[in-house]
Every structure is written in C-alpha cells, then in structure tokens.
C-alpha cells in the first residue's frame, strides 16, 4: 500500500524535480530523478521576467487577492444566511432552503454565457470584483448547507441564556454562534479558497488583460509561451501554483477531509 501511495505521488515529484533541473538536464534520457546540479533559475524566470502574456508572480498575487476575497464573501454571507435557516422560524424558510439546495445542481458551465453578459454590463470584466463575486456565488449555497448542518447542533440553551441577558439576534450570532463554529467556518474557508484558487473556466473568459490573469489561466498560457522542450519554467509555475494549498493541506489535513465528507452528504 505504501508503494502504491508513493507511485501515486511520483507525477508530482517529477514536476518538482523538473522545476529544479538545468534546462539541458531536463531533456536527458533516461529520466534522472535527482536534480543535480540544483537550480532555482526557472522560478526566478517565471516570477520576475517571464513572457508578456503570463507573468506568474503577478498571477500569484491576483489569485491570492481573488481567493481571499471570495473566502471573505462566502463565509460572511453563508454564515448570515445559514443562521436564521437553522435557528429561526419564519415564512418561506423551507422554500428558501430548498431553492438553495436545488441550485447545487446548476452546472457552472451552463450559466457561463449569461454570467459573462452580466459581468460585462456591470463593467467588471478583468477586475477583481468580477472574479471574487461570481466565485463566491458559486460556493454560497454549499456554504449555507454546510453551516446550517452545524448550527443545528448548537444547544439552544446558550442562545436562550444570552437572550435573557438582553442580547439581540445579531449579538447572539456574532458572540455565541460564530465563536462556537470556528472549525466548520475553517472547513468552509478552505473549501472556498480551493474552489476560487483552482477555478479555470470563469477567469479564462472573464479576464482579458494579462495583468489580471489568475494562476490557472496564466499557467495555461505559459504553456503556449514556451517551446515544447522548455518544461523547466512551466513546471516551476506548476509548483508555485500548488504551494498554498499544499501548505494548507499539510496543516489542516483532517479538516479538509471532513469538509469533503460533509459535501458528499449534500446530494
């Protein structure tokens, strides 16, 4: 089993090894699995002096802004929406929740064109908000579902006690419910970060200024910017794009797995 797992990781190892090799060693056959001499020249090239169409350093910054922005919007709006859906009684509650869950079945590809028309009309093409807001909207319904499941498990005595002490609903939400929900909020944040960081199709059409490309788009264009045999810079870009989630994943492995498990129950 350990051997299978190592074999499973070999493609990723090969990418890392390639990114650290001198260009003349990359093309050498048979494949060499130890990059010697080691060089970080490819990283320097894609970060600082790459082609006009695809600057990975700039794209890294764009992806960071877009992903963190989308996380903030998703966590705030989903938490606020999930709270009354879990803890209050009001007209239209099951209708709203049903619509949100049903919308999980709307494929992103299906609303691609009208979403483009909308964002164009707003003047948001090639802007951060033009990426952040639609990305957040894609994850919102899932976030409500995930958080509502958790809010349902919070004992109502805590809220009752706060209400008797004179707290209004907003204070109960921010001072009691949210602090108790940190693990699930973290899981949602990671999920939202991953979706925004890795999304390709929407930024591919919503951004047409090279300075605004996020990483997946810049990487896909990097492939065209270099001749086929110069895999070094492309693989360096691939490693850079994998780094943030790799770090999150190493730190919060269990939380991510929990998030996946809950997402599986949504169907």
């Amino acid at each position, binding site marked *: 089993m350990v051997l299978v797992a190592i074999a499973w990781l070999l493609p990723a190892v090969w990418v890392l090894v390639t990114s650290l090799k001198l260009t003349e060693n990359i093309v050498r056959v048979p494949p060499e699995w130890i990059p010697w001499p080691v060089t970080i020249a490819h990283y320097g090239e894609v970060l600082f002096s790459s082609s006009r169409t695809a600057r990975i350093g700039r794209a890294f910054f764009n992806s960071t802004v877009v992903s963190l922005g989308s996380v903030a919007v998703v966590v705030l709006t989903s938490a606020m929406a999930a709270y009354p859906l879990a803890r209050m009684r009001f007209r239209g509650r099951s209708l709203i929740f049903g619509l949100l869950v049903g919308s999980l079945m709307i494929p992103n590809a299906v609303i691609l064109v009208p979403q483009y028309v909308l964002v164009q009309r707003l003047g948001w093409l090639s802007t951060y908000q033009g990426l952040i807001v639609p990305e957040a909207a894609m994850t919102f319904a899932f976030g409500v579902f995930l958080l509502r499941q958790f809010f349902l498990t919070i004992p109502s005595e805590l809220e009752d006690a706060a209400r008797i002490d004179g707290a209004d609903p907003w204070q109960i939400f921010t001072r009691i419910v949210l602090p108790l929900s940190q693990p699930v909020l973290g899981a949602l944040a990671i999920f939202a970060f991953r979706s925004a960081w890795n999304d390709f199709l929407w930024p591919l059409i919503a951004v047409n200024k090279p300075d605004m490309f996020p990483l997946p788009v810049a990487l896909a264009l990097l492939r065209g910017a270099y001749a086929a045999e110069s895999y070094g810079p492309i693989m360096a870009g*691939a490693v850079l794009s994998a780094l943030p*989630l790799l770090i999150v994943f190493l730190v919060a492995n269990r939380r991510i797995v929990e998030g996946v*498990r809950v997402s599986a129950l949504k169907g």
Partner: protein
Amino acid sequence: MKPRRPRRRGAFTPYLFLAPGLALFAVFRVYPLLEGLWLSFTNARLGRAQHVFVGTANYARLLDDTRFHVSLLNTAYYTIASTIPILAVPLLLAVALNRGVALRTFLRGAFFFPFTLSVVTVGLTWLWLLDPVIGPSTYYLRAAGIPVRSWLADPNTAMWAIILTTVWWVTGYYLVIYLAGLQDIPRELYEAAALDGAGGWRSFWSITMPLLRPVFLFVLVTHVIGSFQIFGQVFVLTNGGPGDATRTVVQHLYETAFQNFFHFGSASAMAWVLFLIILAFSLLQFRLLRGHTQY
C-alpha cells in the same frame, strides 16, 4: 443597545440575516440561469447591443451542427469509459486503507493531494509525463518493450490519456467518500460473517458492496455530472484534438461563444441542452436513492 421596537424587529430579523446572501444568489445564480434560457431563443452575439427573439432557431441549428454532435458523443464516450476506473480505483484503495494499515493518514493524504491541484496544474503535469519524446512514461514503457506512440496525438488513445489524468486528479476525493461509507458499516457484520465461515471475498460481496450502494450512487452521479462538464483537462492536454477526437460539449460551447463565432444565442442553447441532460441524471439519482436507502 436596547432594541427600539422589540415586537416588529423579530418579524424582520431572519430576512435581514438572509438579505446579503440571497441578493448574491439571486443576481449571480438564478438570474443568469433564466437569462441564459432567454438568450437561447435570441440571436445574441458578443458586442451586439440589440438582440431579437428568433424562436427555436438556435436549437434547430444544433440538430445540424455536426461538431456539436461529435462533442456530445465524445463527452458521452468519456463519461462512460471513465466510469469503471472512477468507481473502482478509489474503492479498491479505500477497502485496502480501511483494513487499518499503518500510516493511514499519510496514505490517505498522498492519494488526496492531486485533488488540491488546479485542473491546469494537473494537465501540465501529465502533458510532461506523457511527452512522446522525453517524457518519463515514454521511456519506461519503451524500456519494458511496449511500443509507444504519441498518446495525445493519436485519436485512439488521446481520450484515454485524458481519462488517466482525471483518475489521478479525482481519486483522492472519491476515496475519502468511500472511506466514510466503509466506516459506517458496523464491524459486527463482518465478525458474524467470519463466524459463519465467510472469507474476505465473500463478505466483500455480501456485506460491503450492498451496504455501500448509496455511496456508489453518489459517486456515480457526481462523476457523471462532472464528466458532462469536462473542459480544463481537454483544454490543456489536447485542445480538442487530434482533429475533433477529444472535443467536448463545454469546449464547443466555449469556442462558439468566446473564440470563433461569439454566438451567445447558440452557445446558450447548447448550455440548456447540457443542463437538461445533467438534470435528468440528477433526478435519476434521487429516484434511485429513495428506492435504496432503507436497509
């Protein structure tokens, strides 16, 4: 911070909490869905300010659009051909991991890791691995005496290279779901079966498989819905080639709307055809799940 109107405030509170999220949802999910339906009955184009109702002309044109038919067929072929590996590989790994091997968290992490990558990163990885001249897979296969062609340039193998790439990418995700399903099966069932003399193989078929049925259905339907929207892998690995051998529906939609014709009406019609196909599968899932969840 004393509330001024305690009675009436209570009635509006839930809606105030819901307002920002529902606004986001209505404007960026519901409205585009309906706008897309309207566009599919118009002659809208990129950059054309006005568009008019043209009835079902866009749908009628899809009936004659042979490239759309090829895309649909390719997408269906990809979906069907990838189903067995996508169902089986994560299941085998999950069953093995569930036996309580050492380093389980590490192993699960190793299989899950590719799923944290973007489709572009995954595509570039396999583009390099499968490079017909200097890619390592080419070298090792040749060394093992297997004749190697250029996988991605051969219409017979290009789709399989895409399937291989996808399996590597998503196996970790389904593995986690299978593991959760396996852990819900009571251990006593296996113990009782062992007492009755059932071997490992027998209990796998008589206990594991039937009790995993809801998980199977979930994986199957998630996979089918995802497969009908496949785009990124194709865009990076083959760009629909060689010829149109790996052209998929979403790629055709993307090119119709944003690359070649800028024909939003026709692309929206494709989108709705795709949506109806996916919807049919989703409804099928609900029916099947309803029939089988009680045990």
